[in-house]
């Protein structure tokens, strides 16, 4: 959308400039060229009025110029309009000064200068308008892009956050089904745990930041379910720093990491699986380390480094940094280290 230059804020200064310019024009003719007050006044009013009209005309016209040649066309149109200004001034001023040879002489001599001034002024008006419109258009486009970008980012964050694992859900339901037949009281408890976990997942998806303590609580809900399924093989040990329990972190960050560690521990090895989680403070950052057993035979899924690409993307969207998640293997352990900078707004 093109916007006219004469908005409320620009109107007054332009009007003031025109009045000053007209006064200057009249005064120069009166004091330097010896014209009468009357002649100088008419000359200034008529010439400048047509000039301003031509300037407004070119500013209006240039919105219809093709984008590619707008500059050249503006200059060309100004050239033609300068002749019109010249011609109209002549038609209006000469009859007013019939018989006044000194004025007629002056007019004839000043014609090239008038034309040059008219041409320069009209071209300037046209080009200023052209560039202003162009700038405005780019500004709009930039703003639109920025707002779509924010929307896309929010949608993407939500999607990355809410990755409920269907495999986990159906297997949990299957375990409940088995418990109903073998140990009904435990089945009831597990239904409760699963509901709490799902409810917390849905709630978390709407939150921007939660305390580390809350996230750990949520993690415990998840672990209570995995204990029912894999209690015979799985042992999760936590080493938490009490000092940072109220630290704010993005929700649903630790649980997927632990889920991932458990998954690769359980399906990447046979035998006992010990998953270790530790949190500690390092300066202005929170350090989280998660360790799971790892068998060198097993190939991590190509490129994703144990399915962490979604989390990496999320961290990038939240902190605009790519270095917050690192992984390494140490003997038969796979270690994920997460660094969370202090929360900012």
């Amino acid at each position: 959308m093109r916007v006219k230059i004469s908005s409320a804020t620009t109107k007054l200064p332009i009007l003031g400039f025109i009045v000053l310019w007209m006064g200057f024009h009249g005064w120069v003719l009166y004091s330097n060229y010896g014209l009468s007050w009357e002649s100088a006044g008419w000359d200034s009013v008529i010439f400048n009025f047509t000039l301003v009209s031509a300037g407004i005309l070119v500013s209006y016209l240039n919105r219809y110029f093709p984008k590619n040649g707008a500059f050249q066309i503006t200059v060309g149109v100004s050239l033609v309009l300068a002749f019109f200004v010249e011609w109209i001034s002549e038609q209006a001023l000469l009859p007013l000064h019939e018989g006044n040879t000194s004025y007629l002489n002056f007019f004839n001599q000043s014609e090239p200068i008038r034309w040059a001034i008219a041409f320069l002024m009209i071209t300037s008006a046209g080009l200023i308008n052209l560039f202003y419109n162009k700038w405005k258009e780019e500004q709009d486009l930039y703003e639109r892009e920025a707002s779509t970008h924010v929307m896309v980012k929010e949608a993407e964050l939500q999607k990355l956050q809410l990755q409920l694992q269907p495999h986990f859900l159906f297997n949990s339901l299957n375990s409940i089904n088995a418990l109903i037949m073998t140990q009904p009281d435990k089945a009831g408890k597990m239904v409760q745990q699963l509901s709490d976990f799902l409810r917390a997942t849905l709630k978390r998806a709407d939150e921007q930041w939660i305390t580390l303590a809350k996230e750990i609580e949520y993690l415990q809900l998840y672990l209570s379910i995995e204990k029912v399924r894999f209690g015979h093989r799985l042992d999760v040990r936590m080493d938490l720093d009490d000092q940072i329990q109220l630290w704010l972190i993005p929700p649903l960050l630790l649980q997927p990491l632990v889920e991932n560690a458990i998954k690769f521990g359980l399906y990447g090895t046979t035998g006992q699986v010990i998953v270790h989680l530790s949190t500690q403070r390092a300066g202005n950052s929170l350090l989280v380390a998660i360790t799971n057993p790892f068998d060198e035979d097993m190939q991590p899924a190509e490129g994703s480094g144990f399915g962490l690409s979604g989390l990496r993307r999320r961290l990038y969207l939240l902190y605009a940094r790519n270095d917050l998640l690192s992984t390494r293997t140490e003997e038969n352990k796979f270690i994920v280290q997460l660094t969370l900078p202090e929360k900012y707004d």
Partner: protein
Amino acid sequence: MIKVILIDDEPLACEIIKKYLSHFDDIELVQVCSDGFEGVKAIQQHQPDLIFLDIQMPKINGFEMLELLDTKPSVIFITAYDSYAIKAFEANAVDYLLKPVPEERFREAVLKWKSKLTPTAPQQMDSVLNTMAAAPVQQNRVVVKTGSKVKIIPVHDIQFIEADDDFVKITISEGAFLKNKTMSFYEQTLDPQQFVRVHRSYIIQINQITKIEPYQKESHLAVLRDGKKIPVSKTGYAKLKQVLGI
């Protein structure tokens, strides 16, 4: 009596199938296994008529376990959620059960199998296994058996694959392993930028090649890092040149 084996890594999931099976008088559950390694041993030992097989299990999944068996028993797959596998089952009309498994559905599947209405033909099973071998979880590794031991070979460790009667021989630095697949299967599933079929009987990993020397009329020899020499046919040489960009 019908001999069956159940293979699933979750004890509670096994409990429920055991319970369902106890309602059949003519079925004997001879063993319950918690992973594919135990599964292979138990199947070889007991030669069951039917197995119930979970898909996602420690280290090797249900499909990889089946690949290791020379004679495959009838299988009823049980899975919680695996869109890739379910697509393969549907495409090949292989019966499968979804967790949580209702008892009626379970009975139905067993009765269908008993009446031989849906015996899974070997070629149906092969087709499922071939599809799954190209699935993301499996495409970076090959599972082989040496004697009673199971070995998982990362694809990037393979030096070359050689035709050997009805099998292929997969060579890595530690030795060679037989696998009951075809050359064309590996030609199709391995990354063509990494593995090239240089000869009717050979596929080599290109970063194992140190040099290519002329040999007889119109054929060449590829020399591998450890000095092994692999014949390269005329068309194989053209393919190699194309992949290497020379």
